[in-house]
C-alpha cells in the first residue's frame, strides 16, 4: 500500500511541471508584448519598459520560468493590483471556494448515488425515467442561468434566502445547490450504469442463490462494487466544481478563487491569474491522487497488484 501511494506520487511530478509550465506559457501565448498586456493599452512606453524590467520579461524564457516557479514556491510572486504577494490574496479565497465546493459535493454525492441506485434497481419503472430525465436536466442546466432563476425565486420573490455574499449557513444554500446540480446528474448517471453493470455479474446471482435478501444483494454485494467507478467520477466532479465556481461565485458574489480569477483577468493582474490556475490545478491533481488511493481501498484487486 505504501509503495502504491509512493508510485502515484512519483507519477505526479511530470504533471506538476507541466501544469506550472502551461500556466507560465499561457502568458506568452498572447499575441504581442506581455508587458504591454499587463500595463494596458493606455500606458506610456516608459511604464511598459519599466514593467518589463521589473518582472524580468526582458530575460530569456527559461530564466523567466525559473523565476516564476521560485516565486510560486516562496510565495514571493507579487500581485500587480494589490501590491501584495499573490498567495496572500489567493489562499483566503481558496478557503471560501473549498467550503462551497465541499458543500456541493456532499449534496451531489448523496442525491446522485441515491438516485442512481434507485434508477438501476427499478430499471424501466417511472422512478428510473424520472431520475434519468431529472439527471439530464441537471447536466444540461447552465449554472449561471440556473443561479439567476433560483435567485429570482428565493431571494427576489420569496425573500427566503440572501442573493449573495457569504456569512451564515443561509448564504451557502443557493450557491451550493446551483453548483452541485450538474454533478448530481452526472454522478446519478454514472452510478446507474455501473450499478446495472454490476447487477449483471455472476457474483450477484451467486449472492441471490445463497438466499440473501434483495436488499443485502443490492446494498452489500452490488453497491460496494458499483461505487468503485463512481469514486473516480466524484473526483473528476470535484474538479468540475472548482471550475464551475468561477460562474457560481460570479452569480452569487461569493468571495472565492473563481471570482478572484475573473476579476484578475479583467484587471490584467497576470501573476494572480497564473498562481490561481496553478493552485486550482494542484488541488485537483491531489484530489485525484486521493481518489486513486480510495480506489485501492475499495478494490482489493488493485491493492495487492499495485
Amino acid at each position: 500500500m505504501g509503495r502504491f501511494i509512493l508510485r502515484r506520487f512519483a507519477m505526479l511530478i511530470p504533471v506538476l511541471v507541466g501544469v506550472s509550465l502551461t500556466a507560465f506559457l499561457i502568458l506568452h501565448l498572447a499575441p504581442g508584448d506581455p508587458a504591454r498586456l499587463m500595463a494596458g493599452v493606455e500606458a506610456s512606453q516608459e511604464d511598459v519598459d519599466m514593467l518589463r524590467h521589473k518582472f524580468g520579461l526582458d530575460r530569456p524564457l527559461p530564466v523567466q520560468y525559473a523565476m516564476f516557479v521560485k516565486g510560486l514556491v516562496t510565495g514571493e510572486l507579487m500581485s500587480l493590483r494589490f501590491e501584495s504577494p499573490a498567495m496572500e490574496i489567493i489562499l483566503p479565497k481558496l478557503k471560501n471556494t473549498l467550503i462551497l465546493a465541499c458543500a456541493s459535493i456532499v449534496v451531489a454525492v448523496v442525491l446522485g448515488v441515491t438516485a442512481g441506485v434507485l434508477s438501476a434497481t427499478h430499471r424501466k419503472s417511472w422512478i428510473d425515467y424520472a431520475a434519468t430525465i431529472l439527471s439530464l436536466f441537471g447536466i444540461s442546466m447552465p449554472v449561471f442561468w440556473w443561479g439567476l432563476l433560483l435567485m429570482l425565486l428565493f431571494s427576489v420573490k420569496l425573500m427566503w434566502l440572501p442573493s449573495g455574499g457569504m456569512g451564515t449557513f443561509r448564504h451557502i444554500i443557493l450557491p451550493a445547490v446551483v453548483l452541485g446540480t450538474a454533478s448530481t446528474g452526472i454522478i446519478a448517471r454514472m452510478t446507474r450504469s455501473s450499478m446495472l453493470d454490476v447487477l449483471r455479474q455472476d457474483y450477484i446471482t451467486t449472492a441471490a442463490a445463497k438466499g440473501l435478501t434483495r436488499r443485502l444483494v443490492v446494498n452489500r454485494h452490488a453497491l460496494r462494487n458499483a461505487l468503485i467507478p463512481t469514486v473516480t467520477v466524484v473526483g473528476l466532479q470535484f474538479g468540475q466544481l472548482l471550475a464551475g465556481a468561477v460562474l457560481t461565485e460570479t452569480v452569487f458574489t461569493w468571495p472565492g478563487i473563481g471570482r478572484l480569477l475573473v476579476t484578475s483577468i479583467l484587471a490584467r493582474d497576470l501573476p494572480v491569474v497564473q498562481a490561481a490556475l496553478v493552485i486550482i490545478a494542484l488541488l485537483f491533481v491531489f484530489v485525484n491522487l486521493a481518489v486513486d488511493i480510495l480506489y485501492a481501498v475499495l478494490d482489493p484487486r488493485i491493492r495487492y497488484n499495485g
Partner: protein
Amino acid sequence: MADRSQGSLVARRILRNPIAVAGLAIILGYLFIAAFAPHIAPFDPTAQDLSRSFAPISAGNPMGCDEFGRDILSRIIFGARTSLIIQFFSVCIALVIGVFLGALGGYFGGRLDEAIMRVMDVLLAFPGILLALAIVAMLGPDLRNLIIAIGVYSIPQFARITRGSVISVRQNDYVTAARAIGENQSSIILRYVLPNAISPIIIQTTLRMATVLLTAAGLGFLGLGVQPPEPEWGTMLSNARMYLRSAPMVAVFPGLSIMLVVLGFNFFGDGLQDALNPRLKE
C-alpha cells in the same frame, strides 16, 4: 456506421426511446433555426430602438425587447447561429486532433503513448472551463479565439476516449489476423481498428456538443465570449443580469435556449449510448 443492418438496428433503438427522440427533435429544430435565421427572425437582431427599451412581451415581440429595445426573439434566433458555429468548429478541432493523438497512442503504445498521455494529463489538470477561460483571456475575446480555446480544452477528452477504445479493439483477434495476412500498419488502423473503435467517439462527439455550448455561454456570461452587439446567448444573459430585478424576463429566454439545446444533445447522446452499447440491453 459502416454496417447496414447494425446501423438500422441502432436507428430502430433510438426511435423506440422517447428521450432520444425528444433530443433528436430539439437538435433538428435548432439546426433549422440556425440555418434559416434570416428568414425566420422578424427583426434585425442588432437594430436598436431605445423607445422600446424593455418592451414587454407582445404579439410584435413575442419575447419582448432588451435594454436597447432590440427584439429578443430575433437575437435568440441569430444567437443559435453563433452557438452552432462555435460548437461545430470547436468540436471539429478537438475531434480531429484528439482522435489522431488517441489512436496513435492507443495503437502503438510505449513511449509515444506515455508522452501523449502526460501532455493530456497536464491539460486535464485544469478542470472544466478554466483552461478555455485562461486561453481566451490571453488571446482576447472574439469568436475565433473562443473556438480555439474551447477546441483545445476538448482535445484531451477525445484523446482519452479514442485511446481507450483503440486499446480494447486492438486486442481483438481480427487485428492479429490482419497482421497475419500482411496488412500494413496504416491499413490496420484505418480498416480494422478505427471503424470498430468509433462508437464511443460518436457518443462523445454528441455529448461534447452540449458541454461546448455550456462553456461558450459561460465565457460569454463572464464577458469573455463573443462581444456585443453580436447576438450570443451567454453574453445576452450577462447583460440581462444587470436588470434582473426590474426586467427578469429578459434573462429567461437566452438561458432557456441554452438549456434546451444542451438538453437536446444530452438526451440524444444518452439514447445513442444505450443504442450503441448493447451490453446495457437485455
